[in-house]
């Protein structure tokens, strides 16, 4: 992306942050007013119950003194951007990566499950797609199910898969990876089938005039032609895999990982922990997609398809 394309995106991001920063005041006004009163400031109205009748915004206007204080609460309803940034900085850079308080440690737990699941799901997905393209029975029987399965909320299966595997004695990384694999599997199947079928009749005929056999047709035409489709589905698949790993951590009381951090922050009233885990997960997803886009660009350019990518 060139410089001209970045500026509008930055402006939009800036607007989002500005809205967030402005929203901190009304969201936290009541909590701040209670806290300020305990610290000896005079609030209007004085009784906390009367304050409940006002919206956060009116309360802040009536008591301008609390406005700066809304940004520094220890347990805010909505933390301000700088509070989240500080929390993230502290848990990423000032803690040893092996410590249980480090976000890097929890991120790695989730990331390793995501990557393992992604590799399993993608491999199986590509294999099934090849089977579907070359076997008419498989195409007719399995393909409708692969498409239908994208319309059902597979993620609802997550708690059960964990318990099922736990009952047979499989714990730790693998159950989460299986959920990730399952979620990244179907996008890859659908995209890859489309890709392997993308060569048109003219191209297939050309190979036939070269008297190429089926094997050569696969390696020299169908597989290269499917690459743009494969990368498009890989990018969908990896973010689905990450969501799967996070949700897989929720119902089992996992002690490590982004999902566990969100749950811990929620249950022990530490909003910063939840927000830091949320942004950690977002940044991880962004990095994964960015890495895949980079590989995509490199690959397609080397294959001579760079202009279309």
């Amino acid at each position, binding site marked *: *992306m060139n410089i001209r*394309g970045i*500026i*509008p*995106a*930055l*402006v*939009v*991001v800036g607007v*989002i942050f500005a809205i967030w920063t402005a929203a901190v005041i009304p969201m936290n006004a009541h909590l701040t007013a209670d806290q300020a009163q305990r610290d000896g400031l005079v609030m209007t109205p004085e009784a906390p119950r009367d304050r409940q009748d006002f919206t956060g915004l009116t309360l802040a206007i009536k008591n301008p003194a609390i406005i700066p204080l809304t940004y520094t609460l220890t347990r805010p*309803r909505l933390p301000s951007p700088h509070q989240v940034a500080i929390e993230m900085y502290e848990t990423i850079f000032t803690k040893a990566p092996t410590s249980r308080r480090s976000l890097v440690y929890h991120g790695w737990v989730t990331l390793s499950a995501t990557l393992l699941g992604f590799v399993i799901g993608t491999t199986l997905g590509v294999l099934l797609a090849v089977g579907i393209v070359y076997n*008419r*029975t498989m*195409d*007719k*029987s*399995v*393909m*409708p*199910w692969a498409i*239908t399965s*994208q*319309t*059902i*909320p597979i*993620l*609802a*299966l997550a*708690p*059960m898969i964990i*318990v*099922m595997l736990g*009952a*047979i004695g499989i714990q730790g990384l693998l159950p989460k990876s299986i959920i990730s694999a399952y979620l990244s599997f179907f996008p890859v199947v659908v995209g890859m089938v489309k890709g392997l079928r993308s060569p048109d009749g003219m191209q297939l005929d050309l190979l036939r005039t070269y008297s190429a056999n089926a094997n050569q047709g696969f390696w020299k035409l169908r597989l290269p032609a499917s690459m743009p489709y494969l990368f498009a589905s890989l*990018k969908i698949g990896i*973010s689905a895999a*990450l*969501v799967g790993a*996070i*949700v897989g951590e*929720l*119902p089992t009381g996992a002690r490590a990982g*982004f*999902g566990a951090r*969100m*749950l811990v*922050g*929620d249950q022990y009233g530490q*909003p910063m922990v*939840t*927000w830091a*885990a*949320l942004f950690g*997960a*977002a940044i991880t*997803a*962004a990095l994964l*997609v960015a890495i895949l886009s980079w590989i995509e660009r490199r690959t397609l350019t080397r294959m001579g398809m760079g202009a279309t990518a």
Partner: protein
Amino acid sequence: MAFIIALTIWAVGWWINGRLANGPRSDSRAISLLIPIIFGVTIIAMWEVLVTMLGVSPIILPPPSSIAVRFAGEIPILWADFEQTILKGAMTGYVVGMIAAFTVALLADRSEFLTKGILPVGAFMAALPIVGTAPIFVKWLGSDWHSKAAVVGVMVFFPILVNTVAGLKDTSVMQRDLMRTYGAGYWPTLFKLRLPAALPFMFNGLKIATTLALIGAIVAEFFGSPTVGMGFRISTSVGQLALDMVWAEIVVAALAGSAFYGAMALIEKRATFWHPSQRS
């Protein structure tokens, strides 16, 4: 013995499908509907035979028959959960998110600059694990369906927004010039040319959003809910090892998801009958 029976079922199912798929009328509508159904029935029959004959514990994998019995026996509870999660949580959020996305898209469309900024940022946000905001919304809006609707609204917002903004850009200079020669201003051009041209894109976003809406509503209930709802039922039934109930809820979720998607696809077919992808 169990494996032999299961293999026989598989072989018979596969043989029938092979005959149908490679037969002369394999592209007819009835046959292409019949083949996946036979495949599904084969899988369910194998599952039933293997689970019952090998004596697999029902806390690992219940047989389909007991899931069906449970489903039939618990219809009032399943309906209450469906109402709470799908009708109240997912649908409200979906409609609110959709209206918000359309509004923002129309506003952004007035400015070239905003359009350029919203497309990459929106596409980026759509790839984020937004479902992680669920605990925050549950804290803000309480554990009833309002917080679920909020999660769903945010989740469906970005895919619909990105697709609508992209769709509104999808008219050629020639078409817009034609409208200008007719003396059409912004609004007539919008309603007669650009919105219809954007419809295929908008429906694409709306169809992606159907699955997201159900996922958001169900997963958000894992973070706190009243004692009704599909996510609540799934997590408590898993805790009680009542896996047949979990499977019954999953059947409901699958039916609801397919119906929701199917309804959107049907509306799309009606609304964009003129588009090449709908004419075959």
